[in-house]
Structure formats: structure tokens, C-alpha cells
């Protein structure tokens, strides 16, 4: 299989940036020391580790002492949700890490609209006297819809103020899972009005199994992994020095190139969308028309089977995702697509295309041609 691979699933995983690998390298061998050890070379490693955390903190407008390093977004989310008491509100299109964690306790699941948009009003209506946590993703991983975090933060601020006015000290916090979108949206925590933030290194050209949970200094959470007391006792275990150094560099790089990259991706994505929707008039683009991640294209071909399309395109070297397996295979249909009310026929015929660093004008153009060919052939095969 020497055919060119066109990778269009950047929302699932991203290739590590060479510059990220380069800064990590020394920490696997020469600078292998345990940062908690007392001798000078270990102390130097400790300093580098702290510097990397400082860099992460300043990139999101926070203090280093407020950052807990974890082994990825799922762990950060578990810590955020399980570490806080009371009632929790999440939307019905959240990642399973959020939905499953929330379901294990008193919770309300609110409904996103047909674009996968979670309005501040719907969150407001769900708040109860004992609500302590609202968790909403920055952008939905399947649709790419960007959520109005600032508006939601306003709702929470108002609720907090009214509780204080009543003398009610029950805290209420907003957690945002920014696994998707951190490379395309500025995640300054103050500007977004967050109390907690999850970021995943593996989605921004950094190493996998590294992530962070930022918690504002007033947030009290219970650690979930206890032991040696690392990360201010919030997450025990010897520090993943190389991983954090890589993570910091990765976040730095995507932040530097954010503006340029967003324009580049949006241009290519819009071209691809135009090619597909004009050549395949049956196609339906889901997600918010305006608030959408630049690299995301969620498109359905009603009557076709998205999983089949994945395999057909795979045979041509084009790698895309589907949130949906075949229609006969009940129970594996995407909860997101069901939640936004797509008919089974539309949901089953959908694929998710996500552009990123590996996308070029040429390979996106080529991918567009291949998709039109394969999808037309598939329509002919099923005689639709």
C-alpha cells in the first residue's frame, strides 16, 4: 500500500510536532531524574518541569499553582466531576468521559439544539439550589459546534451572586473540556469566565496521555489519585517530565500559529464543503452554521452507511471518521447525532472530516475528488 495517505481525522489524534519531540528528547535519557530527588541534576529537572507548567499556565492566563497535570483529558474530566460534590449539569452531547462521570451522581442532562449548540438559557433553567458544577465542552468533537462559554459563565456568575446575597455558601463552578478547539480558540480562562478547564496534549500535536486540569484558586476539589502528594497533593505519581515539557511546547506552538492556522483550515474546509455539497446534492452538513471549528466538517449522505464510506475511503488512502456504525447495529449510533435529532438515516450516513497540520490545499482537493467518486459509486451500488 504505497498510496498517499490523506489524514482527515485530526479531532481523533494529531501527529506530534517535530519541535515538540525535540524538546522532549533529553528528558527520556540525559535528564531522566525524578524531580523530587534532592541532588542537583534532579533539581534541574524539577526546575524545567516547573518552567513548563508555568508556560502552560501563562498560555491560558492562569497561575502555575492552579494547574494539575494529569494523564489526559479523560482523567482531568474525572477529577473535575468526581472531585466536586452536589448536583451537576452537563449537556447531552458531551464526551462519554463527562456523561459517564456525571451519570454516577445527582445530575441533570440538558439538551443541545439541532446544531449541537448548548444555550446559556437552557443551562440557567436547569440550575438547582444544590448545583455545584456545570460542565460544557468548548467545542463538540463530532460536530465542531463551538459553545457560548462566556454566556454560560455569565449565568453562573449571576447564580453565584444571588446565592451570596441569600447567604447561601453553596459553591457553583463552570468546567470546560477544551480538548477540541484549544488549537483554534483562545482559552484564556479569565476571558472565558471559567472555574475549571481541561486541556489534552494529544489533540494539539503534543504527546498523548498528558493533559491538565486548571482549577481557579477558590475551587475545592478532592484528589482521585492519592499517594506521594505530587501536583500539590491533587494528583500523586512521579511527574511525567518529558510529557509536560512537550505539552507546554505544543500549546505554545498552537497558540502562536492559531490565527493563521484557523484561516488556513477554514479556507480549505469551506472549499471541500463546497465541492462535496455541489457534487452530491443530497448531502447534509450538520453543526452550527457560524459557531464551528475551522477544521471540522460533519456531513451526511442519507441512505448510505457512514462506516462503509470510512472503509471505502480508507481503500483510497483517505482517513475519515464516522460517529455511526451501520444502521442494523443498534446501540452504536452516535449519541451526539441522536441528541441533535438527526434522523437515523441521516445519522447513519454521516462522516466526520477534521483538517489540521497534515492538510494542504493539494491533498484536500484530491480528497474531495476521491470522496465524490466513492460516494457516487456507493449511491449507484445501493441504487439511490
Amino acid at each position: 500500500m504505497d498510496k498517499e495517505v490523506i489524514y482527515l481525522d485530526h479531532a481523533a489524534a494529531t501527529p506530534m510536532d517535530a519541535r515538540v519531540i525535540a524538546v522532549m528528547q533529553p528528558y527520556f535519557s540525559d535528564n531522566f531524574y525524578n524531580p523530587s530527588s534532592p541532588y542537583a541534576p534532579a533539581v534541574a529537572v524539577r526546575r524545567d518541569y516547573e518552567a513548563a507548567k508555568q508556560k502552560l499556565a501563562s498560555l491560558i492566563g492562569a497561575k502555575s499553582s492552579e494547574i494539575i497535570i494529569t494523564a489526559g483529558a479523560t482523567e482531568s474530566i474525572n477529577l473535575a466531576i468526581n472531585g466536586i460534590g452536589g448536583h451537576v449539569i452537563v449537556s447531552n452531547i458531551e464526551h462519554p468521559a463527562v456523561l459517564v462521570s456525571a451519570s454516577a451522581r445527582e445530575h441533570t442532562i440538558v439538551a443541545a439544539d439541532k446544531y449541537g449548540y448548548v444555550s446559556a438559557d437552557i443551562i440557567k433553567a436547569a440550575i438547582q439550589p444544590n448545583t455545584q458544577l456545570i460542565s460544557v465542552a468548548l467545542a463538540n468533537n463530532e460536530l465542531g459546534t463551538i459553545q457560548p462559554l462566556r454566556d454560560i459563565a455569565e449565568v453562573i456568575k449571576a447564580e453565584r451572586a444571588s446565592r451570596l446575597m441569600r447567604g447561601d455558601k453553596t459553591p457553583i463552578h463552570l468546567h470546560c473540556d477544551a480538548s477540541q478547539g484549544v488549537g483554534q480558540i483562545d482559552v484564556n480562562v479569565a476571558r472565558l469566565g471559567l472555574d475549571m478547564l481541561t486541556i489534552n496534549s494529544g489533540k494539539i500535536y503534543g504527546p498523548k496521555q498528558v493533559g491538565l486540569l486548571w482549577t481557579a484558586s477558590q475551587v475545592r476539589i478532592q484528589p482521585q489519585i492519592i499517594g506521594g502528594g505530587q501536583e500539590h497533593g491533587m494528583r500523586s505519581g512521579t511527574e511525567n517530565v518529558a510529557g509536560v515539557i512537550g505539552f507546554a511546547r505544543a500549546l505554545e506552538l498552537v497558540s502562536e500559529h492559531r490565527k493563521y492556522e484557523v484561516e488556513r483550515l477554514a479556507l480549505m474546509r469551506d472549499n471541500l464543503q463546497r465541492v462535496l455539497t455541489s457534487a452530491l446534492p443530497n448531502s447534509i452538513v450538520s453543526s452550527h452554521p457560524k459557531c464551528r471549528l475551522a477544521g471540522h466538517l460533519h456531513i451526511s449522505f442519507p441512505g448510505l452507511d457512514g462506516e462503509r464510506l470510512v472503509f471505502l475511503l480508507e481503500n483510497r488512502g483517505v482517513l475519515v471518521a464516522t460517529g455511526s456504525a451501520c444502521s442494523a447495529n443498534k446501540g452504536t449510533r452516535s449519541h451526539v447525532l441522536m441528541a441533535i435529532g438527526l434522523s437515523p438515516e441521516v445519522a447513519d450516513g454521516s462522516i466526520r472530516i477534521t483538517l489540521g497540520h497534515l492538510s494542504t490545499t493539494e491533498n484536500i482537493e484530491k480528497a474531495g475528488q476521491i470522496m465524490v467518486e466513492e460516494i457516487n459509486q456507493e449511491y449507484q451500488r445501493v441504487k439511490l
Partner: protein
Amino acid sequence: MNKKPKVYVGMSGGVDSSLTAALLVEQGYDVTGVYMKNWTQDLPGMKCPWADDLADAKRVAVQLGIDFKVFDFENEYRQKVVDYMIDEYKNGRTPNPDIMCNQEVKFKLFLDTALDDGVDMIATGHYARVEHYDNDSFAITSERLRAAPIKGPGALLNSGCRCSSKIGSNLSAGDIPQSSRSVTVSSDTLEPKSELAPGPNSDLERSSTMKNGGRKGEQEKGILLRAVDGNKDQTYFLYRITGEALGKTLFPIGEFTKPEVRKMAEDRGLTTAAKKDSQGICFVGQVGIRDFLSLYVDQQPGKIIDKQSGKVLGYHEGAIFYTLGQRHGLDVGGGLPYYVVDKDMTTNEVYVTTNLDDGVLWKNEIRLGNIHWINEAPIEGLYQIRVRHRAPLISAMLVFDDSGVSLKPDDSQRAIAPGQSVVIYDGDVCLGGGIVI
């Protein structure tokens, strides 16, 4: 123009069923791949790999450009196979889930569902061969005789009167039954085994294959033959299916050895060509029967007793977990290995011995109940039997008795446990079998 005969192929996501589908496409059938969802519960230590297997099966179907369906048989499978197994174990017997799965699910439920959908045939990736014959003419040709090399007394040539009183008469080349032997092989080196090579009538036979496959509603039956690959032969698991079901069944890969199957899959670029074989068939092999049973049966400590001395040697977690002849997992340590010779399900006691010659471990008469013949019952006489999958064929005298069948093997057989199936062969032909009483 003749319409292509329609075939549903059970595709499990493994190399065998992948190649089965590919061969049938090459032979000109209108093929639909079907994944049977039988088991979805996670077992201890493993997430059921059915989602990956399903994706593998579908990927191959897409590669072949064929339709693909999923049949959800989870409820039926649970009732007919899982519950049956648990009941059998609870009663102290050693059942075989794969045999049950073939009898109840693959060659009943799947077949019936497929026929309801209007298909002509089903196919699976079993290592077995099927010879079709027409009930009206009972034509069987010399082709068929060549297909089943004679393997001693009672083999096909002189057994026409045993399998079916009419088989072997009325030879006529024009009525050659549909045969799974007529597969088309793309690679020269992978022609079917020389003794099985299609004779001068092969072209004719091939066209008759297509024609026969296309006809509907006729009373075609099938004879089950051992696979060419003696090492992989799966007829042991298939002995409880019916001649009628076989009449609607194709086993294209039974003509090939496993290495040939892998090579042919690789030559065709099938993505499953190098996929590891599943350990144990059906679901239990993945975790072992013990882990599986412990999901359904509470552990209950009981005594391990030395049969000779009556001494209590230790304790076990439930007699249900032990089977006759078992050596490992007894944990009574030291000295000679102990073997399970008996168990009492009511007192939850397991009896063991170090005496390899214990009479209970060795049987020179095997009595079977719950007899199933694929076609007609054979007459009494000398046959070959297989006491477990991949066990060597041994010759045994078959006599009918009140409760079923009694088999007297030439040499006494070790560790034949109640509940276990014994399958009876006449040369290459699998006649049927029964369950050890």
C-alpha cells in the same frame, strides 16, 4: 440471462469467512455478508471484541463490494446456547457450546432468516465439505466418489447402502449435484487437492452449480464430508445439523488447508489475511470456561476426595468447574498428578486419583443418547468415531441399543465425560453422533 444465485455468507471478521465470501464472489454468486451478533456481554478480563470483529467483517465486505448486514441473535443465542451450557454444567455434564451454536443458531436461525430474505443458499467459513444431492433423483456420481477418498472398511464406495439406500445408484453426469468442490481458484498452486480435482465434467459441473444454486424450493439435501485439511476439520462441531440445512449450505474453504486459505486471502489483499485465529470457537474460548461459569454460578467450596483412600485432599470452589480426566487446577500438590475421576453434584464433591489406569478414566464402551443423524441412520457395523474436536479418528463398532447407540472402540478411550459429543464417520462422511450418557 440467469439471475445470480443469492448467498448469505456468515462473516465473523476472521480470515476463513473473509475468504469464503471472496471465493463466492469470484464464482459469480450474488453475495451478502452477514455478521451474526451472538454475544455482547463483556467477560472478565476482556472487552468482547465483537465490535472490532464486526468492523473487520464489514471492511472485507466493502473491499469485495458486497452488501453487508448484521443479524442480532443475542437473545436466541443466550437462550439456546448460553442457558443450555449453564444447565448442562449445573447437572455435572460437559457440554459443547459450538455444537449447540451450529445446530441452533448458524444452521437454523441464520439459515431460516436468510431463506425468509429470499436467498438461495447460505455459506460459512467452516472447514468441512458438503455434497449436495437431489432428493428426487438421488443422483450421485463418480465425481463424488472421488471426492471422498476411501479410507478403509465402511468408506463411501461400499457404503451407499448405509448413508442412504439410494445414493450410489443412477449415476449420471448431467445430474451432478452442486458441490462445494467446484471453487474457482485464482492461483495455480492452489488448485484443490489432486485427488479431489474436478474431472472431465468440471465445467459442466460448475455451470450446474450455478443453476442448482439458483433453483428454489427443491428438496435438496447435503452430505457432510470432512475437510481436506485434517488438522482443521470442523465437522465435529457440525454433526447436529440436518441434511436439509446442508442442502442449502456451501463450505467453500473446506477444500483447502489453512495455510492455503491464508495465502489465498493474502493474494486477494483481504485485510483479515494475517488476523490471528480466535482461540476456541464461539465466545468461551476467549476467557476459559471457568471464568465464564463463575459469572453465572456462585462459588461453593467442596471437598476434593482421593477415590482410593477416601481421604479429603483439599477443597475446591465448586464441582461444576471440574470435568472428568482433568488434571490441572486441583491444587492438591505434591507427588503424582491427580486426575478427576468422578464428581457428585448433589454433595459438591470431586473425586480424584493418581491411578492413570482407573477404570472410570478408560472406557471400552461409549453409550450415546440424544442421537442425531444428518441424513438417514446407518446400519450397525464398524465406523470411525471422534470423541472430541481434533481427536484422532478411531474405529469403533456401532450397535443400537434401547437408549440410543453403543460404541465399542478398538482401544479403550480416556476421559470421556458425560455431556460430551461423540461424532460418527463413515470414511470421509460425517454421519452424525450423540451425547455421552
